[in-house]
């Protein structure tokens, strides 16, 4: 039988391919059979990098030699794919956790969120938390309460409403042959404890305070006050240590005030936050006051040791007053913003008023983020948002350019880049122009080669063609009149043209000569500085 030589060659090749396939499958992960693994620049999914980070897509050279590395994205690996890590002790769930990181730290990993991570309403006395069941058990144990969990409540607002509807009042019970009382919810009263022992169920009096005379308990009024967890105001305390009504120095001896629960809205001076008021403890967190000790607040009340501390900020950097929790944008570097005229190195900042202190958060450097703010009902809120400047120059008309839904750009009519000059959608010459970033991006011009290509968009040549006559004498043949001072024959480039081009160039990004964020010009020798 005669066998064709070409078949033999094909069979050998197939055998070799199959062999290498088997070899590839049986090779241990991380072995350098794959050409990408040996290549220090090839990106691999690295179990642990040289710097100690886990599950990163990095060049092979950055991967710890002893750790696993596979030439694929980490999402495609069994050990580094991200999922949910469940902490069975704390009852917390964390997403985007690599499998090996979760398992190595003692967590339980799953690709999808496990049922243990589903949330429900956890009632903790007169407060609530929208958490998992295990978390609820943990929180209840901290407070010495029985777990009260309702998984049918499926959002945080409904959970808060649930506890707000709870009746509170005096729970009267016998303890060590005395008629005593504990202030709390009806549910708590049904499982009343005294000292270390659980005692018999108490009698609940909704809307009553423990110091109410008609209850006949051992609890009575005092001049002492306290802060109650989860509440804003300063509260009176009875002789049994129960919180009573809001502290009001005029009601110290008012029997009625010590008998029934009075709402904060009906308590002293409810329209104001009562910050640093020595007579009224009706603090309002939304207005910037909360119960604190006199030492922390810096002022003493008429009775007790607690007062409404002032958390608001006075005379901030911009000269204005702000409430606790308010935030606002600050751009106080040299130059302006919002019209492609930011200075080099300038940045947006978000300032926040916290506990009477003005703190700041930087938005991303290189103006990769910009600060936005709004005021609703007199309460200012600011946030850093991504600066979407990348496709501005590609837009051909004002409408698409200034579409705030997709980009942060501004249309500049009658300003042209060489690349965009004949591209405008509009037939009307007055509407033609170029789309620039509202806040031009910062560029790493001192070390990055990419800056050159971005800034090259603004380049423009002022061409003039010379012609030599028979005797070698040069004569201008053709050229662009508007860039030459006194016409193309003058040989002098127009100062105004140069300025205009530089202006256009600097609208693209940190291109051309410009001012820096402290207002100092930075440029090469001989360059013209815009705005100096």
């Amino acid at each position, binding site marked *: 039988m005669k066998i064709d030589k070409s078949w033999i060659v094909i069979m050998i090749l197939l055998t070799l391919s199959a062999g290498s396939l088997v070899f590839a499958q049986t090779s241990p992960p991380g072995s350098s059979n794959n050409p990408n693994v040996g290549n220090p620049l090839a990106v691999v999914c690295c179990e642990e*990098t040289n*710097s*100690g*980070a*886990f*599950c*990163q*897509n*990095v060049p092979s050279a950055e991967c710890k030699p002893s750790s696993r590395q596979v030439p694929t994205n*980490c999402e495609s690996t069994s050990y580094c794919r*991200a999922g949910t*890590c469940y*902490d069975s*002790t*704390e009852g*917390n769930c*964390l*997403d*985007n*956790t*690599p499998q090996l*990181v*979760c398992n190595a*730290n003692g*967590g339980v990993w799953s690709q999808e969120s496990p049922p243990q991570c589903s949330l429900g309403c956890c009632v903790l006395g007169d407060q609530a938390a929208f958490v998992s069941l295990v978390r609820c058990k943990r*929180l209840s144990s*901290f*407070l010495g309460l029985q777990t009260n969990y309702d998984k049918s409540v499926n959002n945080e607002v409904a959970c808060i409403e649930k506890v707000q509807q709870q009746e509170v009042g005096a729970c009267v019970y016998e303890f060590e042959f005395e008629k005593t009382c504990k202030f709390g919810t009806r549910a708590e009263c049904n499982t009343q404890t005294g000292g270390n022992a659980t005692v018999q169920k108490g009698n609940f009096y909704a809307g009553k305070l423990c110091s109410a005379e008609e209850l006949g308990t051992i609890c009575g009024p005092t001049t002492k006050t306290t802060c109650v967890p989860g509440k*804003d105001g300063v509260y009176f305390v009875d002789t049994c240590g129960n919180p009573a009504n809001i502290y009001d120095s005029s009601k110290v001896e008012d029997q009625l005030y010590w008998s029934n629960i009075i709402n904060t809205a009906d308590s002293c001076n409810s329209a104001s936050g009562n910050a640093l008021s020595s007579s009224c403890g009706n603090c309002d*967190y939304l207005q910037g006051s*909360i119960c*604190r000790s006199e030492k*922390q607040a810096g002022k003493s009340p008429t009775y007790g040791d607690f007062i409404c501390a002032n*958390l608001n900020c006075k005379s901030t950097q911009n000269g204005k007053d702000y409430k*606790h*929790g308010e*935030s606002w944008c600050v751009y106080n570097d040299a130059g302006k913003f919002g019209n492609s005229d930011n200075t080099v190195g300038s940045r947006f900042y978000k300032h*926040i008023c*916290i*506990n009477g*202190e003005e*703190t700041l*958060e*930087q*938005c*991303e*450097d*290189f103006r*990769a*983020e910009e600060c936005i703010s709004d005021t609703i009902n007199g309460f200012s*809120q600011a*946030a*850093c948002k991504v600066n979407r400047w*990348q496709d501005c120059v590609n837009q051909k008309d004002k409408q698409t350019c200034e579409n705030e839904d997709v980009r942060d750009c501004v249309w500049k009519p009658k300003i042209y880049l060489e690349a965009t000059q004949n591209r405008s959608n509009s037939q009307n010459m007055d509407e033609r122009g170029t789309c620039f970033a509202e806040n031009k*991006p910062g*560029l790493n011009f001192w070390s*990055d080669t*990419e*800056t050159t290509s*971005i800034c090259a968009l603004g380049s423009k040549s002022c061409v003039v063609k010379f012609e030599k006559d028979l005797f070698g004498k040069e004569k201008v043949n053709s050229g662009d009149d508007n860039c030459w001072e006194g016409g193309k024959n003058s040989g002098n480039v127009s100062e105004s043209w140069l300025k205009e081009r530089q202006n256009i160039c600097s609208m693209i990004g940190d291109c051309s000569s410009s001012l820096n964020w402290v207002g100092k010009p930075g440029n090469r020798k001989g360059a013209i500085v815009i705005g100096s």
Partner: protein
Amino acid sequence: MKSDVFNARRGQVTIFVILAIVVIAVIIVMFAFPQVNVFSSSVNPGAYLKSCIEPEINKIKNTLSVQGGYSSPTNYAMYKDLKLQYLCYTSEFYKPCMIQQPLLVKHVQDEMKRYIEPRAKQCLEDLKDQYERKGYEVRSGTSAINVSVVSEKIIVDFIAPLTISKEETQTFQKFAVSVDSSWYNLLITSINILQYESIYGDSETGLYISYYPNLKIEKTRRDDGSTIYQLSDVISEDKFAFATRSLVWPQGLV
């Protein structure tokens, strides 16, 4: 006669002064060394162990507080000469970070235990010595310690069976030392911030202000894309700081 009366009065005054000095000295000793029982020869084991281990707890707590819960940070951001461990990290652009420490509370407990265990065992040995010096017969079993960071407290449990005998016999199975701390709440808030960072690439600190009046969060952005979080409790002055690197935007168009 007159000088005798005067001398007698002066003597009385001297005695009263000496008595006053003794009383003040006793009071000072009682407050400065609560484990020393000046009125009896017995040792208060709980107070003794607390005074022995509390400085160590504070020491490791202060270290972990400024290093993201790690005594020896590996993957960290440098900030004001401090090494802050990245608890959520990505080396790439445009991507939210991957969680690097999902069980932060457990990790912190393990770090604390590792640090204080040798000293805790020494404290137990010293306690036994104290009893023996006072004439007690001491029998003890194998000891172990356990550290728990819980709401408003850090608890160190000395699981150390101990029997002491003199005229009567006392047996202890466990001693618990508790130090007030709001660190747990800071760790739980940190975990919540990590959750936001790993899903959305950023966190909104204003949210926490509305829920937690005593919490202060300082967020600092670094040029390399890192974010430094410094959490503190304005009442207890406890703090916890860590770093993340998430959803980093490149310079230019990379």
